């Protein structure tokens, strides 16, 4: 029983980091209807930003965090301007967006390999490695902080979307971009805001990911799993993305704990195919009629 709860806690902590990444995929999908595969590259650079601001500039932990988040937000907006804006202006089909995103992701990964190098880097230790024990369960300090910060970020995001005027504009644009534009919503700004928010969360997630594991140029491939979580929860739905991530994270740790750690990665893609076959809109996605 203890082992069960132990796995559950580990799963929740990794699931919450997935959630911050998945939200980025889902936000962009809800507005622009395409899967932004460049997001993995942004997360990867977030991990590097955090790493270098802690090792090279020797910033304290919190400041490094902020710098990474701001850096990735700027990067995400920049990618949107260069790789997607011209396509948006031309009203290109979604596939061109996906290909452009793939191009951006190849670019980001390889520019890091070319400049920084392909080596694995380990974050300096910030939190003590001795776990906190509560009633026979031992919880890693990093896991606890990861869960706490992620939850905080997600609550802030929900408040932003639900309570502010910009949030209202985002919700309107996700229902119908054209109608929102006619009602005086500056859709261009909405798109930028969405990319900036996705970028911010990607930075935070990237730093956590780097701290939990290591930093290397191919992190983007692992973040693909958070994309699976977004699909699982229903692309375009924020609560869905969070729910999907938490379920995926927990499931993964259970598979790794009880079956074999080798099947951990496989489970994500098996879920992906299963979801698409039986319920393509995921747990909470709105049913979308194909208008062909």
């Amino acid at each position: 029983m203890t082992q069960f709860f132990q796995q559950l806690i580990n799963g929740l902590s990794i699931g919450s980091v997935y959630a911050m990444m998945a939200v980025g995929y889902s936000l962009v999908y809800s507005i622009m209807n395409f899967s932004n595969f460049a997001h993995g590259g942004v997360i990867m650079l977030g991990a590097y930003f955090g790493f270098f601001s802690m090792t090279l500039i020797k910033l304290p932990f919190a400041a490094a965090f902020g710098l990474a988040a701001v850096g990735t937000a700027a990067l995400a907006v920049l990618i949107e301007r260069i790789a997607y804006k011209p396509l948006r202006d031309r009203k290109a089909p979604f596939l061109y967006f996906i290909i452009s995103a793939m191009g951006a992701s190849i670019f980001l990964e390889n520019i890091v390999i070319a400049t920084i190098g392909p080596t694995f880097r380990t974050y300096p230790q910030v939190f003590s490695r001795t776990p906190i024990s509560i009633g026979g369960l031992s919880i890693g300090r990093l896991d606890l902080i990861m869960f706490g910060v992620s939850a905080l970020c997600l609550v802030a995001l929900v408040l932003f979307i639900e309570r502010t005027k910009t949030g209202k504009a985002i919700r309107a644009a996700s229902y119908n971009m054209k109608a929102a534009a006619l009602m005086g919503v500056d859709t261009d700004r909405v798109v930028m805001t969405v990319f900036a928010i996705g970028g911010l969360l990607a930075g935070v997630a990237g730093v956590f990911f780097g701290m939990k594991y290591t930093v290397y140029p191919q992190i983007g491939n692992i973040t693909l799993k958070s994309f699976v979580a977004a699909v699982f929860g229903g692309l375009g739905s924020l609560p869905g993305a969070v729910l999907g991530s938490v379920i995926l994270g927990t499931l993964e740790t259970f598979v790794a704990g009880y079956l074999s750690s080798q099947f951990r990665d496989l489970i994500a893609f098996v879920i992906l195919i299963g979801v698409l076959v039986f319920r393509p809109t995921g747990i909470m996605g709105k049913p979308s009629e194909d208008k062909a």
Partner: protein
Amino acid sequence: MDTYIQGIIMLAGINLMAVLGLSLLTGFTGLFSFGHAGFMAIGAYSAAIVTSLLKLPFVFGIAASGVMAGVVALLIGKLTLKLKGDYFCIATLGFGEAIRLILDNFQGLGGSRGWPGIPAYTSIWNIVIVDILGVIFLANLVRSRHGRNMIAVREEELAAQVAGIDVVKYKTLALVISAVYAGVAGAFLGHYMTFIQPKMFALIKSTELTIIVIFGGLGSISGSVLGAIVLTFLPEMLRAVDKWRLVAYGAAVILIMITRPRGLMGGVELTPSGIRKVLAEHRAKRKANAERSAQ
């Protein structure tokens, strides 16, 4: 001939084989796949089982690779082709990654460390012959009734359905044929490298194939041929600046998307009649311009 050049020619031929199939699926039927490396993997491992374990001739290996990839594609198609465009795309991504991870964990075929010692059966001659056969088959297919139906599905799915075309059937057909091409390409790749490893068939390989098709131009077989040759040789020539080659590649992909999304030869074939068509259009445009300036 220089063995290095020979090697690149073989590689271009192998890429071309996979790209031809994907060209049918993406360029002519309008379905995007990010999982064709998965079909290549199936082909490569099936062929290796036949030639390396069962010690049968290469022809049987090629046949097995095509059949296996085709059968798997049929199953995948039955499951996923009812999905709308972008979800199908995501499903193929999941399929490709799942195949790679299964092979990674399957120790019987070498697991993630790979499978060495596959006989080097691939030669310039057999790959070129298979490529030519592939082009001929594809060119005839797209001009047949079936090909026209596929193009109709690409252009306007709903209208095609209303006109009585069995959309799912033609999508499945295109997927299966493209998978057979990819499988055969995988067989040749395995017997060229003499070593296969699941890592070789990762998402990036699928992306690369799709990029070649788009670079060559959607709906053009000669575009795909050109694209495969150019995009295999170009990175090799850039070996000197090895580290930066994929950086440039990524940037080029974005650049093509935002400036010339039709690719090199979108919709145009490099045949006498195709060239005449383009020239005629060009002349008509010049004439119109001349008339306008004369007024």
